[in-house]
């Protein structure tokens, strides 16, 4: 289903990319290069027609690029108009509308085409249109179901929509599961530590082979107790769960007055302590007032006559 307009679009895109003029050899690129060369000839002949005797290569290239873009745009638009009217092949009227749309006076075209000084350009060398590499065929290509007319586009290749079941029966044997979990964890840990060791500084236990048993270098930290004492985030989650349940237990059993503070005493205090202003208790809860602790009292403003 080679469609010229589509081809033109594809052509320009490819040429645009390989504009650097690399020596290429694939058939598709040969084809495109041939077209491009024809365009260059066209540009050159037009220039001659206009009275130029010579032109810089760069200028010719630019003009070629412009003409190519123009033709591509015409093709693209024409294709769009044709698809707009539910057809798949552009007609003359599509092209005309396109040209008008692009601001070209169509009426001048026949005159221009028949001008006397025009040069005849040999047809581009026949090169084989590039062969679209065959997509991997996965499964049977589906035909249209009966309710879809046959002129509608075919289904895409099956690999784009077919799902392939790859899972096997889950292993339920306890021993194997444990075995797997263990070796998986070990592999992950080993890979991770190896990676860390490879990417960072290491210490080694052997002098002859410093890559054997690499140890991630010990790095002193400025506040070493934090990482050593605080549980990791994962552990913290479980901690919070157990903590809250423990606290509930306590409130239940103790029943001391003022114990209802226990629900969240720390959070309140934590917030109240943090502002740099100092020990200003948040006036959020009325229960808070029941605690008379000197460290929770507000800081006094200095007296004017106060000494020291």
């Amino acid at each position, binding site marked *: 289903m080679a469609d010229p307009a589509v081809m033109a679009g594809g052509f320009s895109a490819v040429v645009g990319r390989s504009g650097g003029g690399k020596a290429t050899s694939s058939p598709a690129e040969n084809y495109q290069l041939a077209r491009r060369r024809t365009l260059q000839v066209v540009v050159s002949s037009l220039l001659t027609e206009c009275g130029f005797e010579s032109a810089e290569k760069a200028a010719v290239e630019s003009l070629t690029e412009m003409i190519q873009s123009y033709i591509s745009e015409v093709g693209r638009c024409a294709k769009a108009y044709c698809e707009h009217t539910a057809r798949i092949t552009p007609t003359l009227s599509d092209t005309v509308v396109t040209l008008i749309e692009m601001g070209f006076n169509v009426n001048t075209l026949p005159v221009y085409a028949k001008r006397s000084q025009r040069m005849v350009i040999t047809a581009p060398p026949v090169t084989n249109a590039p062969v679209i590499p065959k997509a991997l065929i996965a499964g049977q290509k589906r035909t249209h179901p009966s309710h879809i007319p046959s002129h509608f586009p075919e289904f895409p290749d099956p690999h784009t929509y077919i799902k392939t079941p790859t899972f096997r029966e889950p292993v339920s044997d306890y021993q194997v599961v444990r075995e797997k979990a263990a070796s998986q964890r070990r592999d992950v840990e080993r890979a991770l530590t190896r990676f860390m060791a490879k990417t960072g500084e290491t*210490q080694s236990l052997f002098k002859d082979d410093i890559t054997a048993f690499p140890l991630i270098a*010990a790095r002193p930290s400025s506040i070493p107790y934090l990482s050593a004492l605080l549980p990791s985030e994962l552990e913290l989650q479980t901690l919070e769960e157990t*903590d809250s349940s423990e606290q509930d237990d306590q409130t239940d059993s103790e029943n001391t007055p003022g114990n209802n503070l226990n629900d969240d*005493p720390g959070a309140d205090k934590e917030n109240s302590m943090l502002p740099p202003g*100092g020990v200003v208790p948040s006036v959020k809860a009325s229960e808070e007032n029941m605690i008379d602790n000197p460290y929770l009292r507000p800081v006094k403003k200095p007296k004017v006559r106060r000494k020291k």
Partner: protein
Amino acid sequence: MHEIKMNRKKDKGFESPRPFKLTHQVVCINNINFQRKSVIGFVELTIFPTVVNLNRIKLNSKQCRIYRVRVNDLEAPFIYNDPTLEVCHHESKQRNLNYFSSAYTAAVSAVDPDAGHGELVIKVPSELWKQGDEMNVLKVYIEFSLDQPKGGLHFVVPDVEGSMAERGAHVFSFGYQNSTRFWFPCVDSYSELCTWKLEFTVDASMVAVSCGDLVETVYTHDMRKKTFHYVLPIPTAASNISLSVGPFEILVDPYMHEVTHFCLPQLLPLLKHSMSYLHEIFEFYEEILTCRYPYSCFKTVFVDEAYVQVSSYASMSIFSTNLLHSALIIDQTPLTRQCLAQALAQQFFGCFISRMSWADEWVLKGISGYIYGLYLKKTFGVNQYRHWIKEELDKMVEYELKMGGVLLHPTFGGGKDKDNPTPHLHFSIKHPHTLSWKYYKMFQCKAHLVMRLIENRISMEFMLQVFNKLLSLASTASSQKYQSHMWSQMLVSTHSFLKSISNVSGKDIGPLIKQWVDQSAVVKFFGSFAFNRKRNVLELEIRQDYTSSGTQKYVGPIKVTVQELDGSFNHTLQIEENSLKHDIPCHSKSRRNKKKKIPLMNGEEVDMDLSAMDADSPLLWIRIDPDMSILRKVEFEQADFMWQYQLRYERDVVAQEESILALEKFPTPASRLALTDILEQDQCFYKVRQGACFCLAKIANSMMSTWTGPPAMKSLFTRMFCCKSCPNIVKTNTFISFQSYFLQKTMPVAMAQLRDIQNLCPKDVLNFILDLIKYNDNRKNKFSDNYYRAELIDALTNSLTPAISISNEVRTVDNLNGDVRLILEEITRSLNMEKLLPSYRNTITVSCLRAIRMLQKNGHIPSDPSLFKSYAEYGHFVDVRVAALEAVVDYTRVDRSSVELQWLLNMVQNDPAHYVRHKILSMLGKNPPFTKAAESPLCNEALVDQLWKLMNSGTSHDWRLRCDAVNLYYTLFGLTRPSCLPLPELGLVLNLKEKKAVLNPTIKPEQGPDTTEMTGNTMGVHIPVMGFTSSLDEGLITMETVSSVSMSSGVAPPPQGLKRKLDSVVGPLGSSPPEPGQVLQEEDSSKKFKIRFNTMEEDEIDMESPHDSQAFIHHHLNILERPSTPGKEPPAVDQAVLSLPVTPLPSSFSKESTSSSKHSGHHHHHHEHKKKKKKKHKHKHKHKHESKDKERDSHAFSNSPASGRSVRSPSMSD
């Protein structure tokens, strides 16, 4: 005077050693600079003179820079002299520890507040002391500052971005015993009580926590700082005052609102959890003491780089932040609770009730330790309590037997032993600051054990009544606001304590006190028995060893428990002078009642399989002193089956542990069975089961050839902790039952000690442990498994055995043994994972470091300290650092590396963390690079100098560290002059000067190796000479071995080695002619001593004009910095002679002194004095005989403060 005071107060109350009474003190610190680590403030002491014409006030102050002193608004001259900065001033070549110890004790005595002395002597302006007899209040106002304090206050300033508060910078006070003088001038005695007003101005983002009630917090005018005002109305000793400032998070205790907890930023969740049971401890103590907590509030502060884990001060305690833990952590929880309980016990006894003198310290430590034990019993159960008592007793007994006795209540003077009641020790126990740390720990241990003995005698009820009485007396006294003479009721003394015991109980505990408190040492029993079938009598023989060091003779009752077929019977025997044998009639005939159940001590009746026992004897087992009511070690002999019965059926954990220990010697299938049964028994105390694991491993190793079945404990572990369906895989962790958790942790560690016939860890045991690590799965566990994983690494460590290889072969990856490769892989992975997911307290890193050291030591991987050194750097978690340092210490010993030793000693001097410094020295002491008994290339003069300098002046800021250094010096060189030093050149000088041509023959060959380079051959010539002169066969033999060693090694340490041997051979020889150098040394030391302190006395004469204190302090600091060896003198004797100064002319002396007295700059004056004295002194060395008498005359009148007496020099009194 002093000596009498130190004695037990027989009938008098407290007598202050000071001519004044302190009633109130203000401490105001108005600037704390974290950047510069400096503190500025002032103190004001309100004192009442108790004598007419109080003209001098002695206070304690160390390292403070004092700007001005005013007494009642009048400028007062003062002198600041701290003899402990540099213990032995002039540079002698003494270097023997005896000399140092006595000089150090004298220096500490000279400023001892309990004797009325102090570093700071203030002259009361004459306007004030002319006022006559009416006792006027004096207000002593002192402005001071501290710049980068080395002791007393510790600044922790993490090196990160942000403000000081964001960085978590904090500062706190610390010290060993009375050390408050390090951070403000005070009377640093536990017996001088006063009320307090404390003010601290700190950054607005910080909190200042101190003793007493926080009255108010006020902003400064610029609103950038705030001042915390504390008032402590309860009379308190300065030594119990503390401070900590930092950006603390605040937690008001949800149960007790007057209790506030403080921790460093981000740790609040841990604080909340860790403090959630503090109220229970409060309730417990208040209930048993029937007394409310004496202070109106209590504060706990958790700080980083703490000096000790727990330190208690009046109404507050400072803890190490590393005690905090989350709910996930099992192992730390009881430890933290114990620390809290200790701190709280010391609040009652130690802070609120203080002591009269150092000799009474045991009462406070004893009571607080005892009530802490009661808390243990209540919270952790009787088993844990008894286990703890046994552990403490064993620890203490072991120490006393090794080091000699621990004396709880030393009395000084008057006695025959003169000043030293403990001549076996290398330090003086006269002051807390001269004690070895280990000794002090054992002292505390013994104190609470003795309290328990008293409880045994008078019952717990009476005991608690006594405590209550002490507390109520004290609280009555404390409320007497203006009657400071009443405050001495708050001081406890041995006498008052014993008196209230006899008042309350009506019992005489004199013999008990005499035996355990007034006397050091423990009792060592050996027991054995025979059963006399005819008489049906148990013939018990109890012998004692009271001749070896640390032992004493015991006379008195002893309890013996005999378990017979018919039941358990207690017998009380009298241990008397000459009776060794005791006949105990038995109640049951053997095998009479076969079918019956056997009644136990606790009334339980059990079925026993009696087939193992001796058919002729009804005895199942025998226990001597089962209640541990004597401080003793018992070695008892009974048959293996008796130990097995005891292990299985005796319900007391102490008995079970004893039998486990004994069964190690009986590797039989029956022992194996008994131990396995105990392991399986859930009701059995978990620590006993843990002990059984290790015993079983030992037995299995002894029974190697006859052992049948899988390796010991393997099937047991499989049954208990592995999946039913797949026995090689361990269950996923659920540590809900703590008993089985502890057992699960211990079993692999014990199993790894198993060995096969090749003395290797059996392959299946190693694979088993590797599988445990592999299949460890903690996802479903509500507790952290970090301790468990760490112990699995420990198990791998335990499985290591020495590598089989040719010596000196380079350890490479290629020749790594397969098993070791697996082990190493696990260790590498675990250690690396710790970097990504650190475990609580980095337990796994700690275990990995130990494992790597073990691999190195066993020759599997190359021995290399660099890894450990990097982990030991400042900035790692302290546990990791200590583990790494331990490895470096071990490396230093094994590889005899002087580089590492230097590195360690360097760290001792420079590390910011005091605990780490202390730890290094104590680890070096425990695992010394060499000892006085052995040769080592490390032992050289430079090292002696360095260590000497360390203890002489380098550690003056930390009592504990100084004593650690003394300990190390003792371990390395012993009491006498280190053997690696050349003989003192003085010996030679003296000979030359005296023109006594008789050079001692023992010195003569000594010059040879020093002056001429000797080869192995010439040495061979010298040896016979040596042997001849010393005329001692042993000497000859040792000399020969030395020479052969040095010759075979090829390297040339011969001069050193020869010299050292010579010295050590000559030293202990009592009969051989005394060597002149040594004699001189002795006399010399005593003389120098006097001179040194006399200079101080003379200082005091010059007090008329105000001092330039700063310059004076600078002078002292210079002394501190100055190397104690001015210009290292090479060991060669002739050079040493040359280096001595020429005899100074007497005329130049007089000139100097006159010119200096005219000098206006007073500090300069001092300086001159010192210099002069020093020169004079050196000069005296030479003219020893001529000047000796003169010297005596000149110093006859001035008493040395070193003798412990306060002195008024004539010039002071007019």
